[in-house]
Each structure stands twice: as C-alpha cells, then as structure tokens.
C-alpha cells in the first residue's frame, strides 16, 4: 500500500477513535484501558512475521520474544477485561 492510502486510513481511524472513545461511559474507563491494551497487542502480527520468515536468525528470535510478550498482553488483557466486565451488575427490576 502506498503511503497516502495508509495515512488516509490512519487519519480517519483517529477520528473514529475520537468519537467512539467519547461515547464510552466513565464507569468503564478502567476496562477501556485494559481492552485497548489487549488490542494494541495486534503488534503480534509483526512479531509473527519476523518469527515465521527465514532470512535472519536474530530477527526470528526477536520475533519469537515479541510473540511471547504480545501473547501475555492479549490473553491477559482480554481475560482481565472479561473479569472486570462480569462484575458490573444491575439489580433485576
């Protein structure tokens, strides 16, 4: 993809992020941080590419280390968010 297409997606996504995040209820700001933490670990994509491809053994091991770190975050982040969200209850009326 050329730079301008990527930049367009980035700028539009910033605006989407702006409006979506303002609509998040303040009561859920801690789960918001936990889940943004989990999704920002989509960086695992880069780590997987490095770990999968041949060419540089150093890059492969850096990639594998990146996969471990990002996995901690992905599993930990989604699990802890789920745990928190399960606690938000309203009495049955």
């Amino acid at each position: 993809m050329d730079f301008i297409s990527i930049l367009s997606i980035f700028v539009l996504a910033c605006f989407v992020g702006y409006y979506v995040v303002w609509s998040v209820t303040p009561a859920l700001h801690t789960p918001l941080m936990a889940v943004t933490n989990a999704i920002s670990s989509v960086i695992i994509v880069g780590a997987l590419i490095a770990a999968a491809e041949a060419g540089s053994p150093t890059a492969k091991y850096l990639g594998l280390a990146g996969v471990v770190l990002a996995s901690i975050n992905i599993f930990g982040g989604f699990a802890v968010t789920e745990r928190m969200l399960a606690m938000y209850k309203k009495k049955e009326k």
Partner: protein
Amino acid sequence: MTFSVLAGAADAAATPAWVPLAYLVSGVFFILALRGLSSPATSRAGNRNGIIGMLIAVATTLVTHDIANIVEIGIAIAIGGLIGFTIARRIAMTAMPELVAGFHSLVGLAAVLVGWAAYLNPGAFGLLVDGAISPVSKVEMGLGIAIGAITFSGSVIAFAKLSGKMSGSPILLPGRHIINLGTLAAIIVLTGLFAAATGPAATLPFIVAVTVLAFAIGSLLIIPIGGADMPVVVSMLNSYSGWAAAAMGFTLGNTAMIITGALVGSSGAILSYIMCRAMNRSFISVIAGGFGADDSGGSGEPREQRPYKQGSAEDAAYMLEQAEKVIIIPGYGMAVAQAQHALREMSDVLEENGTEVKFAIHPVAGRMPGHMNVLLAEASVDYDKVFELEDINSEFAQADVAFIIGANDVVNPAAKTDKSSPIYGMPVFDVDKAKQVFFIKRSMGGVGYAGVDNDVFYMDQTVMLLSDAKKMVEEIVKALD
C-alpha cells in the same frame, strides 16, 4: 477479475487480495470492541468482538506466511498465553493500575522487538525496494522503535511507583527539562540520520543510539511525576502504546495495526485530557512533573491546629440510621484499605432501613480512570447507584449525610474559593452543602496528595472518623445492627 480473490488465496507469496481485507475486518472488530463499552450492558459483547478481531489478525498472518517455525510460534503463544491468563485471574482489583502499566510496558517492548526484527530482516516484511529499505520506511521504523522504547521504560517506572516498589513522590533532577528536551531532539535528529544513511554499517549505530536514548528518556520523563498525577501518566502511556502500534502499522503497511494504533492512541489521549480537566491542570504541567513535591508545598510556616470534632463508629451509625439520603464519596484510601466490600455491606444495611444511598465518583479518584467504579463493581454495588461528579453534585444540598472515605482533595472547597491553592479550579464535590459530613481518615496528619489543608475537616457539621477505613466501616455496620 472476479476470481482474483480466490486465485490469490492459492498463491500466498504475492499478498493475495483478501489479506488486506481480512486485516480491515479485524480493525472493524476492534472499533466494535470499544463501541461496546458505551454501556455495561453491551460491554461483554464488545470484549468478544475484540477477541474475534485478534483471532482474524493472527490467523491471517499465519496462513499468509511461510510457517516453517509453527511449533516454535505455538510454544511462544502458549507461554505468553499461560502467563497472561494466570496474571489476569490472580490479580486483585485494587492492583489494576499497576497491572495496566505493566501491560503497557510489554506492548512497548514488543514494538521495539518488531522494529528491530524489521530492520534486521526487511525482506520478510516486504520492505526492500531495490535491495534497500526506503527512507520513509526507516523513519517509520525509527519512530516506532523510539515510541515503543519510551512506552516500555516509562511504564516500568509507572509500574514501580504504582506498586510501591519505588517512592510515589516526585524525584526532581536539576536541569531535567533541558536534559529531556535535548534527548528528544537528539532522537529526532538521529532518526533522520538513520533514514538518510544506507547500508547496515552506516545505519546500525544510529538505530542503536535511537533505541538507547528512547529507553533513557522514557524513564526520565516519568520519574519526576508524583503519585496523584498517576491517572494522567497511565492514560498517557496507554496512548503511547497505541502510537507505537500505529507506527509499526505504517512500517508494515498493515491496516489492522494502523486502525488499532489510532484507536488506542486517541483513547489514551482523551483519557489524559479528561483527567487533566478533572484536576484543572494543563497536560504540560503534569508532564513537567513535580506536583506535590516537598520543595513546592512547604511554605515554612507551621500549620496551626484548628479545632475539629472527632466521632466514633456508634455516633456515625446513629446519624446514618436517621438519614433519608446518604451520598458516599470513595477515594484512593478506600482502595488502599480494601474497604469496598464493607462499604457495600453498610449501604445494604442502610437501604434495608429505607435510606437512599448513592455513590459519587470523581474522575481522578484512585490511581487510574474508572478505578473506583471497578472496585465498587467488584463489591457488587449496582452500577446505577454510582454517579459521576457532574450528575450528582447538585444533590448534596438535599443529602442528610455526605460520607467521605479515603478521598480528600476532591472535596476540598479551597478549589472553589482559594486562588492561591495548588488545586484551585479543580471541580470538587459540594459536600459543605450536606447537613452532616462524616470524614473517614487515618489521622489528622496527612493532608492529601496536593499537600493542602482541607476546610471540610473543621466545619460545624463535620465529624472526623479517625481510623483505618475498612475497620471503621465494619464497626459502623456492627453498630447499625
């Protein structure tokens, strides 16, 4: 043309057309994940969407690359997953701020590793143009590594401060602003030189220097920031971790990473803004650090001891029994004392007695945005009884009792009246309008993180309950029975 999508799938080497689409879909699921958090009712579905988005991104990457190392990759995911799950299940809700800071550091470090891997093996990432990495890619790479490294070391310091492994009070180095600005400028210049240079021998020293300086500046930036400003710091690092992912997305031309990075980056930035607004402080002044440091607070004159009323749990129980409307204001002290469960018991007893009980939460209560809400949810307080500052502040005039537990600066009227006060202009709860105020505090010694005295202590209608928050509430519950 119609069949090119399918034809492409068979030939994984030349990025088939469905691949960018799959990453785009993954990005859309991440948007839906955040959208779900607009209400607790839809939030869990939102979290599931996040998981689906992640599965799509990971699966797409694995099927489109040479997966000769699939066993090692599987082991790496299993190790990380196991560690992550264990931490997520065991962590106490009161420790959520340091957990989030710790997780931010991992995103940052992962970004550094990916950046370095891309530098060492550009061919794998499709970054080679005529046998070399293009200058634009190198700028993106350099920035990604720098932001990742700053996120990592900054989050490590934040983690150390939040978990008490390092003093929460600001540590001020002489000339720190000059050192910090100089280092940041050096990182930008070195990234430019890195982009301009060609060949491994010429580029290596620059990228090493960028990485080292970025690790250093990350910790230098957070060290001078005090405990009370941690909600801003945690939000800011959240934002940085997003920008690091976005920068890597630019390098790899990956839509899922760019969308996610932009979402997380904006999210953290908005939360930082909300936190700053709730303290009436500018972002710059928070980043500059030193708030609540000894050298700014102590004016030298000894504080005069003003008269205050002290009460017992029985006094409080007696008054609470008579009350028709009680507003509870929890703060960081409640989290430290783990008093949320006892507090919920107290509110249950009062409600059985026919009293209306509401919880009032200040945006900066605790050590991260929404910290108090999570703790009350943990103690099974209904979320429709928990209110934000602007929604409940007008109700104090009708309240019989304002019950302050572990909060201080957020109820200080000096923020409204005293222009010389360091917290002047911060929106605060109008507890002085309530008929009766109970103020649970460990002792009369400590005066909040801003280091300012609080007139609420000395009001006619205030009764100080000097004790550990959890013990005091448990005694009140006993006395109510």
